[in-house]
């Protein structure tokens, strides 16, 4: 089966001119008469393709260029260099045309009118996308069924919980059946139960409507549970582009061993073993399995003296953090 690229990014760059000011009142005066500027490369020669129907995690540390990239892909910002084609459209040249094909949810910025009910908001958003009244009604019913909004669809948005608001934000961004949904930190500030509900909804949208999902998040749970592909960027460049499966396989060279001993064991850091915690009879070790096998470490601890043991993979969070650090070097 042939694949179709819905997003094509070629050598995309964005630089910002930032005014620098020396400290104090004197510095403020000096900056008026002799301003100094610094050029910040937020996105640096970034190239990437995304296939139709993919769920992609686009992640990186703060200031890596994630949001700037999304803003260029949605037509909010104009690239300094390079080009992006989203759903066959250049966002910098045809912003309005592109808007009919994409949906956006910015977890940190609300798009809904807070004094209106979700229903009235959906009617308004439907009108923005030139939908006819009967089309809007039909779409609201569909979204209501999929996103389970019935309970609060007629309650003013300002009276909704954060989780309910985000569900409504997602529904509003889907009113015009977009081909691609850009989600920038959609689960920020939500409790674990609501986060899980939002993830289920995003998955369902991808399956039921075939919507391509372009997700940025600092929440590893979002990435692990939703995305099959991970793109990590740092300093405006792609530092890793791989499947979630490969990411785990290639970078899971560490195991975490937690043991409860009958008596205190004196163990020192050595090649392949890092002591994370040593408190009375409890030990937490990080093992580099390329240098030391788990069996060797257990032997070292003396199996007769072990009361309880737990061996787990290193959390994905740590793996990603290590990739961030590695790319910095």
């Amino acid at each position, binding site marked *: 089966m042939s694949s179709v690229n819905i997003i094509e990014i070629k050598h995309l760059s964005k630089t*910002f001119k930032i005014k620098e000011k020396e400290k104090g009142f004197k510095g403020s005066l000096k900056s008026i008469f002799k301003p100094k500027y610094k050029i910040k490369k937020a996105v640096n020669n970034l190239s990437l393709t995304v296939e139709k129907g993919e769920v992609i995690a686009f992640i990186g540390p703060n200031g890596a260029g994630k*949001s700037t990239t999304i*803003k260029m892909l*949605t*037509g*909010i*910002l*104009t690239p300094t260099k390079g080009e992006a084609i989203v759903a066959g459209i250049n966002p910098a040249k045809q*912003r*309005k*045309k592109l*808007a*009919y094909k*994409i949906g*956006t949810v*910015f977890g*940190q*910025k*609300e*798009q*809904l*009118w*807070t*004094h*209106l009910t979700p229903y*009235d908001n959906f009617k*308004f958003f439907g*009108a*923005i*996308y*030139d939908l006819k009244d009967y089309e809007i009604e039909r779409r609201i019913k569909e979204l209501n069924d999929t996103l389970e909004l019935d309970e609060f669809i007629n309650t003013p948005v*300002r009276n909704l919980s954060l989780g309910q608001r985000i569900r409504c934000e997602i529904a509003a961004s889907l009113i015009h059946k977009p081909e691609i949904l850009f989600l920038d930190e959609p689960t920020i500030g939500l409790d674990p139960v609501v986060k899980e509900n939002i993830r289920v909804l995003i998955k369902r949208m991808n399956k039921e409507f075939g919507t391509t999902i372009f997700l940025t998040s600092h929440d590893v749970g979002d990435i692990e549970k939703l995305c099959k592909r991970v793109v990590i960027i740092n300093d405006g460049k792609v530092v890793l582009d791989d499947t979630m499966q490969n990411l785990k396989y290639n970078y899971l060279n560490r195991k975490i061993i937690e043991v409860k001993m009958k008596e205190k064991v004196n163990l020192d850091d050595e090649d392949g073993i890092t002591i994370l915690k040593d408190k009375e009879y409890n030990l937490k070790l990080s093992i580099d399995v390329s240098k030391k096998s788990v069996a060797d470490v257990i032997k070292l601890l003396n199996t007769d003296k072990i009361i309880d043991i737990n061996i787990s993979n290193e959390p994905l969070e740590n793996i990603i953090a290590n990739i961030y650090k590695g790319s910095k070097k």
Partner: protein
Amino acid sequence: MLTEVKNQFKVSLLSIKYSILRSMINKSSFLFSVLLMFISNASFLVQWIIILSVSDGADLSMKQILFLWGIMAGAYGLSNIIFCGVHYLPQYIISGKLDAYLVQPKSVLISIATSQTSMSAFGDLLYGYAVVLIASPSVITFLYASLFIITGAIIYACFVTIMYSLLFFSINFRDLVTTLTRIPTSFGTYPENIFSGVLKVLLYTIFPIGFIVYLPVRVLLTNNILIALIVILFTIFMVVFAFVMFNMGLKRYSSTNLMNARV
């Protein structure tokens, strides 16, 4: 093209409707604001009654003052009912709130302009009509007043848009630009006759008070259709200029990642 304009108009009307509904959520607060604005404007007229009674007032008449106040208050009121959102542009530009509008398939400027309304502006508009009709209670005065209240509202909103579009180029001008946007309302309630020289030139160019209120008052006093036509042409020019300036600035918009809510 025609469908696009029709759809934009439909969305703008819906946006104005929702903005007005928001301002009317608290009915007693709304009515009180309208009434207070009406009384506040009326107090300035008392001032003019006193001035005209003690001065010769060779070139001034109470009718002229009433027209002046009527058109200015009406235009200011209508502008702040329909296009109040333009006053929020600095906040939108600086805090990155334009993002929500840029991902929609409609004009960013019109969407922002129609997204807010001012409660007290209803008082200004009512007061404007009341004062003009007290000065000359006739159908022709009502029609002319309506025309100039609309053109004045558009010119004023465009002027504010042009001023605030400068913030795309440097946000350091925020306080200066905000002060400049208040000039039309300060000068617009004084008769044209008292200004001369460079100041008068400024009032017909950079600060287009002449076209918002002075020329309309002349039409109301002299029934000169040619002047009315000049006002209409200038309104069209201001609309084009405001869109050009805003769109030029929009290309320099850099957004931010500050947390925001649309309230």
